[in-house]
């Protein structure tokens, strides 16, 4: 389909509920998987709450779409960066984040973690390497 592979990075900065940014960002990510590009995700600022464990939206009347993140591995999206400073600033640790995984086809389909903790400075370098950065 495409003549070249580009590096796409989707940067999620907003809390999952209250606005539709998180859900609509996830929709772009899932579509992008169909284009055989190199896709990575970043969760930073309040965006880290998008992949927090044990989400329950029942009282708010909003749809809990967080189970969809678990499907990212099936779409070959397995570079999911979480900014460590953002976690720290919100009193969170990696234990509060969903243990997203993928099956590595080059390693007999072994299940491996998709979550990669990264510092603000490391993410700045990673963003510099991308062809397309889409943030919301």
């Amino acid at each position: 389909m495409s003549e070249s592979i580009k590096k796409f990075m989707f940067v999620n900065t907003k809390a999952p509920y209250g606005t539709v940014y998180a859900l609509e960002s996830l929709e772009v990510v899932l579509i992008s998987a169909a284009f055989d590009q190199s896709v990575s995700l970043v969760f930073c600022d309040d965006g880290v709450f998008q992949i927090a464990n044990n989400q329950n939206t029942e009282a708010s009347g909003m749809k809990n779409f967080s189970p969809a993140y678990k499907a990212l591995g099936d779409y070959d999206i397995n570079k999911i960066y979480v900014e460590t400073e953002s976690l720290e600033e919100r009193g969170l640790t990696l234990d509060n984040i969903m243990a997203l995984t993928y099956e590595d086809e080059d390693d007999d389909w072994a299940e491996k973690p998709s979550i990669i903790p990264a510092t603000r400075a490391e993410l700045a370098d990673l963003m510099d390497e991308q062809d397309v950065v889409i943030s919301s």
Partner: protein
Amino acid sequence: MKFTLLINEGPYQHQASDTAYQFAKAALAKGHEIYRVFFYNDGVNNATRLAVPPQDDRNITENWAALAKEHELDMVVCIAAAQRRGMLDADEAGRQGKDADNIHPAFRISGLGQLVEGGIQADRLLTFGD
């Protein structure tokens, strides 16, 4: 250079669409190419043909429509984001059993694949919004 523009905020209450419009005009004047303008999130509201802003103010939708006509711009509104916000063209209104449509004919509705493809085809994808 070939640009795709992504506009993520609605008209008048955010600067994104105005800034993108001024950028597009300036880039085209300098001989650059706009491969596509993609409207997402509340950005889809820029495509309403029913807005009636005061006459002494700019009409954002008509500005885009005029620029698109002059330069044959491909202006795409995300169908899922549009439907969520009550933005329908005549075909969609019929399909969804709604009694009205409101998308300006200068815009077309399509899927998110058009955004990703815009990112692949362009030299730069520029996001306008928060």
